[in-house]
C-alpha cells in the first residue's frame, strides 16, 4: 500500500495508512517463510527441479499419437462414465435437493437430507472411488458410482438453494386452485427453477468429465488408467498426447454446455 503525498498543513490525509492490515500482511509473510521451511523448500531443490523440468519437457515433445486406439478407448470410456454418472446423479439429486429445501419442507426432513449432502461432499471423488473399487472391483462401474456420489453432494446443495430462492406467490396461486403436491411442484416450482437446474446440470457434466479422466488412477476405469500407466513407464510423449486430448475434450464439452445453457435461458 502506498501513502498519499503529505501536505504541509495538518489537514486530514486522503489515504490513512492501515496499520492492522499491514500487520496482517507481515504475519502472512512470516507464515509463508515458516511453512516453506517446514515443508523443506530450498532454492537448490527448486533450481535442480528446473533442470529436470527441461529434460522432462524435451522428452514430452513431440506428442506421440501412435497408440491412438488405446487413447480413444480410454476417452470413450471416460465419456461414458461422465454421462451416466451425471444422468443418475441428477436424477437422484432432484428429490434430495427438494427434501433439503427449507421453504417447502419441514425441518425434520431437511436436516437428514442436508446431512446426506454434507456426507457426499466431504470426500474427494478419488477417495470415494477407492472405496467403490474395493466394493465393486476394477472398472467403469466403480468410477460411475464415485461420480454419482460426488454429483449428489454438489448438485443437491445447489438445487436446494435454487428452490429456496423461488417466489412463493406462484406456489400459493397454484395451491389456491386446489392442486395437489405434485402439481404444485410441476406448475409452481419447476418453471421457476428449470433454467438454473440446466445450468447446474451442464456444469456438473463438465466437472464429472474432468474427474472421469482421473478416477482411472485408482482403478475406476477411463483414460486415467492409461495416463497413469504411460506416466509410470516414462512414456512422456504419450502422456502429452493424452493430456492434449483431455484438454480438447473438456473445452469441447464447455462449448456444448454453453449452448445448452443458452437454449434454456
Amino acid at each position, binding site marked *: 500500500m502506498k501513502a498519499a503525498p503529505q501536505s504541509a498543513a495538518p489537514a486530514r490525509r486522503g489515504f490513512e495508512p492501515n496499520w492492522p492490515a499491514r500487520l496482517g500482511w507481515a504475519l502472512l509473510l512470516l507464515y509463508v517463510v515458516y511453512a516453506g521451511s517446514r*515443508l523443506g523448500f530450498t532454492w537448490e531443490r527448486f533450481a535442480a527441479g528446473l533442470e*529436470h523440468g527441461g529434460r522432462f519437457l524435451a522428452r514430452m515433445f513431440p506428442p506421440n499419437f501412435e497408440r491412438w486406439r488405446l487413447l480413444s478407448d480410454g476417452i470413450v470410456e471416460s465419456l461414458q462414465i461422465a*454421462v451416466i454418472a451425471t444422468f443418475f446423479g441428477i436424477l437422484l439429486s432432484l428429490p434430495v435437493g427438494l427434501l433439503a429445501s427449507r421453504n417447502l419442507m419441514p425441518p425434520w426432513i431437511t436436516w437428514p437430507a442436508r446431512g446426506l449432502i454434507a456426507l457426499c461432499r466431504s470426500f474427494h471423488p478419488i*477417495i470415494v472411488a477407492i472405496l467403490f473399487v474395493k*466394493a465393486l472391483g476394477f472398472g467403469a*462401474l466403480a468410477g*460411475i458410482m464415485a461420480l454419482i456420489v460426488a454429483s449428489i453432494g454438489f448438485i443437491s446443495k445447489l438445487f436446494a438453494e435454487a428452490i429456496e430462492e423461488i417466489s412463493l406467490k406462484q406456489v400459493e396461486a397454484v395451491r389456491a386452485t386446489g392442486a395437489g403436491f405434485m402439481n404444485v411442484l410441476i406448475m409452481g416450482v419447476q418453471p421457476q427453477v428449470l433454467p438454473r437446474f440446466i445450468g447446474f446440470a451442464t456444469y456438473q457434466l463438465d466437472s464429472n468429465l474432468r*474427474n472421469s479422466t482421473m478416477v482411472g488412477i485408482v482403478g475406476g476405469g477411463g483414460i486415467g488408467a492409461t495416463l497413469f500407466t504411460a506416466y509410470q513407464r516414462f512414456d512422456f510423449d504419450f502422456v502429452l498426447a493424452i493430456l492434449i486430448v*483431455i*484438454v480438447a475434450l473438456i473445452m469441447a464439452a464447455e462449448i456444448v454446455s454453453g449452448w445448452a445453457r443458452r437454449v434454456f435461458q
Partner: protein
Amino acid sequence: MSVAARLERDWRRFTPVQRLARHAFYVATAATVVLSLRTVEVIPEFLYDAPAQMGDLFGRMWPMDWRYFGPTWDALVETLHIATLGTILALLMAVPIGFLAARNVTPNPALNLFAKFIFVTSRSVNSLVWALLFVAVFGPGPLAGTLAIAFRSIGFTGKLLAEALEEGDRGAIEALTAAGAPKLSTIVLGYWPQARPAFWSIALFRWDINIRESAVLGLVGAGGIGVALDTALNLLYWDQVAVVLATIFAVVVLTEMAVTLIRARVI
C-alpha cells in the same frame, strides 16, 4: 377477432425455434445416455456381491487402529501447509493475470485473451495431473503438491477476480484519473479497494476447496495426508485407512465451519 376467438387462442410460452431447440436438447440427452448405457463395459456380477463386499470392507475398517494417528497427524499438518501455501501462491499469480483479464483495467483484447487462455489451461488440467507433472519435475514431496495446488487454482481465482474487477464502479476510477493519478495509483487506490471483499471471499472459497484437493495429492506422491492413505491402502491395513478417512472428514467439516464463521463475521 371476437372475444370468444381470442379466448380460444392457443397460448404458448415459447417461440417455435425455442421449442425446437429444447426438444433437440432433450433428444440429444436421451440419445447420449442410452448410447452410453448400452456400450459401457460393466460386469453385472460385481454388482450382485457389492453389499457383501461393502460389509467386508467396513468389517475390516472396524475397530480403527488409532496407533496410526501419530503419522496421520504429521501428514495432516503437511496437507494444511500445502493447501494454504498453494492458495497464497495461486493468488500471487492470479492477481496480475486477473488484472490483465479484466477488460476495463486492461483495454487490450489480445492481452485479455492471453490471460483467459492461462485460466482455461489451469482449470482444464486436474490437480492430480498437475501433481504428476510436478512430481516428475521436482521429485516426490510437498513442493510438487504445493505447486500443483497453486497452478490448478490460478484459473478459478483469476477468473472470479477478473469478473469482480469488471463489476467495479467507474466513478472512483474517473475521480482518480481526473486528479492526475498514474495507472498504478488507480489500480491500488481505485480498483483494488472495490474488488477487495470479493478477493477475500474468493481466497477463502478456494482455500476450502484446496484442503479437500490436497488430501488426495499424496496418492501420486505429492505429499500430505494422501501419502499416509496410500501407504495404508497398499498394505491393505483397512483399519488404518479408516483412521485417515476419519481425520480427513473431521478436517473438512472443521474448515467448512471456520469458513462459514469467517464469512459471517468479517466479509
